[in-house]
């Protein structure tokens, strides 16, 4: 195998494929990127078995062939070459990476150890790439990173009346997003960790999505992201969503984020921020025994059956939810200090962020 291409074009396909390569892998060969050259195309594949990224680029092909090269070294070596043409080729069982002077010699990994991935027939529904990337950002914040409960590390994909519904929860909060007009068939639990990589690996203006029995596949003109589905059944979340909320307040999003930024100076995860919803808006208070506190008033429209209602949240959870809600205002609907609150943009929105309070 031997190819030649512009440094920046090569670096782009390598860096994106390398995002699937883990630092700690079960098999040594998974530290490598599979580079396949046929016709005029270089195809690069990185995988950690749960997530697989394939990218490709048109290059000058001097010799066809396949080789597995340690991913981090290959990627960094190409990136650090002088600008201009870079050549990658196999010579005497070593890989040579050469660019206008510098030359690396790298031992390849055993190609026969590289996992054989099933072929995919791209046959999905087309989704607006930006809308998908936004949706991914909005739901994955609520997914758990705790490997002890694998089901909660996934995002549920299911079809709804509106289109595609995505739901994630770590049991302290839940995010639900409807992507209208996306007629994706089937149901599956897609790993949030891999999904977060979507914009950075194959993000594009048009993405094709498909959901199989064992994996979800996203493809675009920039490559393909394959995510192995998580086994198990997602919690029955519908029953957790309250039907009615006696109290609600509508706040300016920027003002709320600024306030939470000030709160964060005093609070840590385990120090809750208290919101007192009352006529005229919300009183925000945080206090910490060994540090001090902060308090302020936020203008807002309050309506409720209670004269006032106080609720406390983990400030980081609250901030993360407010950040991803699109629009200029935030509606917070509250039952009481012990039941889930729901945040959204106040309209007939396609996104809700449900947050459990902190009992104080």
């Amino acid at each position: 195998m031997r190819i030649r291409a512009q440094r920046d074009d090569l670096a782009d396909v390598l860096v994106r494929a390398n995002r699937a390569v883990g630092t700690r892998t079960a098999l040594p060969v998974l530290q490598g990127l599979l580079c396949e050259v046929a016709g005029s195309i270089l195809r690069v594949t990185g995988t950690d078995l749960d997530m697989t990224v394939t990218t490709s680029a048109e290059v000058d092909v001097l010799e066809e062939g396949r080789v597995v090269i340690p991913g981090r070294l290959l990627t960094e070596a190409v990136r650090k070459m002088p600008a201009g043409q870079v050549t990658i080729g196999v010579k005497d069982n070593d890989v040579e990476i050469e660019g206008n002077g510098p030359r690396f010699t790298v031992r390849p990994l055993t190609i026969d150890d590289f996992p054989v991935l099933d072929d995919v027939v791209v046959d999905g529904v087309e989704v607006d790439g930006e809308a998908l990337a936004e949706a991914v950002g909005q739901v994955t914040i609520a997914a758990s990173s705790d490997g002890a409960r694998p089901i909660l590390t996934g995002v549920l994909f299911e079809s709804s009346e509106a289109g595609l519904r995505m739901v994630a929860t770590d049991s302290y909060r839940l995010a639900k997003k409807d992507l209208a007009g996306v007629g994706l068939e089937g149901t599956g639990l897609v790993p949030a960790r891999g999904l977060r990589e979507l914009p950075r690996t194959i993000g594009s203006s048009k993405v094709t999505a498909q959901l199989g029995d064992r994996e979800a596949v996203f493809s675009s003109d920039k490559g393909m992201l394959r995510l192995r589905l998580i086994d198990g059944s997602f919690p029955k979340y519908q029953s957790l969503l309250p039907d009615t909320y006696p109290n609600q307040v509508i706040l300016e999003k920027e003002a709320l984020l600024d306030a939470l930024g000030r709160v964060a100076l005093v609070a840590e995860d385990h120090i809750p921020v208290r919101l007192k919803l009352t006529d005229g808006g919300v009183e925000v208070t945080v206090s910490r025994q060994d540090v001090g506190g902060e308090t302020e008033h936020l203008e807002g429209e309050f309506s409720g059956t209670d004269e006032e209602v106080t609720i406390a949240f983990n400030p980081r959870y609250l901030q993360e939810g407010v950040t991803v809600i699109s629009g200029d205002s935030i509606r917070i609907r509250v039952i009481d200090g012990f039941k889930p609150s729901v945040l959204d943009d106040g309209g007939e929105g396609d996104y809700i962020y449900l947050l459990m309070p902190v009992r104080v």
Partner: protein
Amino acid sequence: MWTEPILHVDMDAFFVEVERLRDETLRDRPVAVGGVGRRGVIASASYEARAFGVRSAQPTAIARRLCRELVVVSPGHGRYGEMSEMVFAIFRSFTPYVEGLSLDEAFLDITGLRRHYESPIDVARDIRAKIATDLGLPASVGIAATKFVAKLASEVAKPDGYRHVPVDVQLQFLHALPVDALWGVGPATFAGLRKLGVITVGDLAEIPEPTVTSSLGPTVGRHLIDLANGIDPRPVQSDSEAKSLSVEETFSSDLRGQDRIEAALLGQSQRLSGRLRRSGFAAETISIKVRYDDFTTLTRSVTPGVAVDSPRDLFSVGKQLLGEVDLSRPVRLLGLGGASLVAASTPRQLRMDSNERLDRLADAVFGVRERFGEHAVDPARLIDMQTEDLESDR
């Protein structure tokens, strides 16, 4: 900001008072808890007995000579540990900053309550009232700017009172005390100080520092001079971090099968929850211990992200941990423990699967069990198991 946010709460004649809860006839009489044998020593004396000169650490024989009517109760009848856990639970319901010194005394930092109370005196009054109404025990409280002044103040407050030492009269209060009231002044140091003509704390504050340090050494000397001037920067060290609580049992016949093992875990969840609640704690880390019939022992632990104290949560976490070990082998011993304890009053992130009604039920069950005994209410699964045990015993 309060200038005197440190409390020292000291239970009055704790062992005696716990015995009095058990036996009403011990009230209003000189009573001591201690060894009744020939070499017995008094552990704790009631104030009626102290009036006769009975002191703790005194040989029982001497105490009896000083006070003819003295009733000596041998220790062990009373539920000292359990009552102490309940006293500390009350402390922690006021503040998470509790530093226990022994079963019956602790420092509390109540800075965090300044929004809720007019003054530290009101906090002290409430704590004393709660211990008296809930547990029927007397306690004395010292209120001061520093730990050691608070401890001296509670000594002065005894029995069944409180003493507030405002920071501006702190030195007057201190200087009038005998020097051996200071922490760290034992008989040897006391003798050294007497040679320097130091009788009261005030004397110590007046003599030049080199005189003290050359006689007692630089570290001790400097420290005592600081104390004599009311300087004690040591903060209240809440002792929850290091502590852990656990229950375990060795079974008379090995447990076989997942069902039996989980049922045993369920019982332990109830008991551990009871102990946690009694001491006012919730556990951030949960562990299990499994010993098989060949004595190989495994432990597994997890930190679920929220502190747990209810039987239901303990059981569900414990069950998850049991999933990590081989349950097809006979189990000789099973244990369930909680570590990284935090005050149950610290804010708790609620979960979507938390169930308020089940939590209230658990509270009610806990109340019933506290009052009528451990097996007054049991999960049906455990009752089955007890019946089976009875049958297999026959």
